[in-house]
């Protein structure tokens, strides 16, 4: 199969697959991530495109630039609703805002799947959810950290994303993972705004205020990349730096030894899975439910082996590993 067996969504959250009615002979599918500003969603999109090319399906991407621009994203969904689109693969930072519009899409007979999510109870019934468990991923990296560094007391700093579901879940997963372990002492937790610049500033400042920090966990790879520059500038090459995503650049930084490890969520593969499921849904062969895509913790050795399979990555690594 092209994807793991779906798990059923919660009671009432599953829209009936047999009500899907494609209007075009060549399927026309809209991929609508919350923003173009994250490589991550571009990587998912590349996975989607790869499958679309194989299957001979039309797919286009429409997204606002900023993930904060939810109003802009809703405007785009509204605009897409007036077109003859057969399916929408979407991701959003605000499911309640999207719900009324996606309900219209479902009512019109479009296939509607959500990407990069683990929400089993989307506020309006949709056809499927594809993604990894945010909380489990960062929980895993906390476990990994305990296994590798947990034998002596550690001072830990956390760089959060801008507040919201993703930040809460990822930071929450990490905190759950280290809970109860006396050696892990979280001394500071500040906002890195999801980007490299913010991660760099946050890294500088927390290393200033806590020069004895041993470990930094950031809620995504961009922020930990930013923090790594700060650590380097302050001569702290010994510090343990943990991220989340499995972004190609993040993996390359791990391979180069600038970052310690990350949660690899394989966005490219997630996109492929989502597209297969969507096409199946349009063909009536998808049962509905949540497809959990796998995650893994990659340190230097792991990152190199992932980078050795560039066909599963987007963007491509900058060199051959």
């Amino acid at each position, binding site marked *: 199969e092209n994807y793991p067996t779906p798990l059923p969504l919660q009671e009432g959250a599953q829209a009936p697959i047999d009500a899907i009615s494609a209007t075009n002979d060549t399927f026309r599918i809209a991929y609508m991530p919350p923003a173009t500003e994250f490589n991550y969603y571009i990587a998912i999109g590349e996975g989607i495109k790869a499958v679309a090319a194989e299957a001979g399906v039309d797919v286009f991407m429409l997204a606002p630039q900023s993930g904060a621009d939810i*109003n802009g994203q809703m405007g785009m969904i509204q605009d897409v609703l007036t077109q003859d689109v057969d399916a929408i693969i979407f991701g959003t930072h605000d499911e309640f805002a999207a719900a009324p519009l996606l309900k219209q899409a479902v009512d019109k007979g479009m296939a509607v799947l959500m990407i990069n999510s683990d929400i089993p109870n989307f506020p309006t019934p949709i056809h499927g959810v594809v993604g990894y468990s945010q909380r489990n991923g960062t929980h895993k990296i906390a476990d990994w950290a305990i296994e590798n560094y947990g034998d002596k007391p550690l001072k830990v700093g956390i760089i959060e994303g801008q507040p919201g579901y993703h930040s809460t879940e990822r930071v929450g997963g990490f905190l759950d993972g280290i809970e109860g372990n006396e050696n892990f002492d979280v001394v500071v937790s500040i906002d890195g705004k999801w980007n490299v610049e913010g991660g760099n500033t946050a890294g500088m400042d927390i290393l200033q205020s806590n020069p004895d920090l041993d470990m930094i966990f950031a809620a995504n790879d961009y922020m930990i990349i930013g923090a790594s520059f700060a650590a380097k500038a302050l001569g702290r090459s010994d510090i343990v730096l943990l991220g989340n995503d499995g972004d190609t650049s993040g993996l390359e930084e791990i391979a180069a030894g600038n970052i310690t490890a990350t949660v690899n969520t394989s966005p490219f593969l997630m996109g492929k899975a989502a597209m297969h499921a969507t096409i199946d849904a349009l063909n009536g062969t998808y049962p509905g439910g949540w497809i959990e895509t796998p995650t893994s913790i990659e340190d230097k050795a792991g990152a190199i082996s992932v980078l050795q399979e560039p066909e599963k990555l987007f963007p491509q690594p900058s060199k051959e590993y």
Partner: protein
Amino acid sequence: MKRIFDTQLIGPFAAMVIVALVVALTTERFLNPGNLSNLSLQVSIVALIAIGSTIVIFAAGIDLSSGSMVALLTMILAQVLKFMGIPLVLAVPLILLAGGLLGLFIGLITAYGRIPSFITTLAALIAFRGLALTFNNGSPIFSLDPSLEPIFYGKFFNIPLPFFYLIFFYALAAFMMNFTKLGREIYAVGGNPAAAVLTGINVRKVQTTTFVIAGFMTAVGAILMSARLNSGSPNYGQTLELQAIAAAVVGGASLAGGRGNILATLMGAMTIVIVQNGLNLNAAPSSIQNVVLGLIILMAVGIDMWRVEISALMARIFRRSSPPQSSNIEKED
């Protein structure tokens, strides 16, 4: 009536029609009835906020705070609805009041503190988003009141409600600007504040009032935003202030104050939204959308600035007569 629909409307109206024609010709589904009612939804929030931004501009001020104020107000609305259990019928007027008060605050600092509005509203732009983040630990508050959504998505005779809000508030604003003492005073203050003082106009009060109006209209926009997204978030409304100003400017309002037609702002907002809609319907990437929007702003203002030269050029081309050479006159007042 002649007063409201004056010559200042011709340019923005023509621009809107031309843009609509171009989009209609290049985009299949643009003229679907579904898409047309969609347009009125898309334009509503920014166009309503732009009423306030434009009136502030008429009085020679500028309001950079509206985007952040939207974020703050959606958070207050969400807080009030979800965690304080205040019913919607009370919450809505409360938010309108809060918007007016925030505007009053900005207005008082600007007018009585003699601080340029660019600065006060820049400070507010930064501070309001900070304040919005203090609610609910900075996390968005989702899924508010089920009766909130119909405020935005509801229909009346199959026409979306926001269409009626637009008509109502623009009619009110046009009436105010053209037929009331306050409207006249706003233009006077924008045109020449020193002269306004000497004619007994309470310039500071008038300036403050424009910010109260802007705050109120921003609250209207915030309520619609919350209704549309059924949530409040400290991230909402980013760059909305620039979009609202862009609407005013594309509509021909002069940033120097004193001049402009409020209805032209609606056309400016429509022009921008039609272009965005056209680009969306053609699945243009957001990079292109930004570039096109930038060009539209430039062109709209350019056409307005060069009106004399352009009409002279047109005259020369079409009439083949030779009027006095066109000149580069510096306007000295």
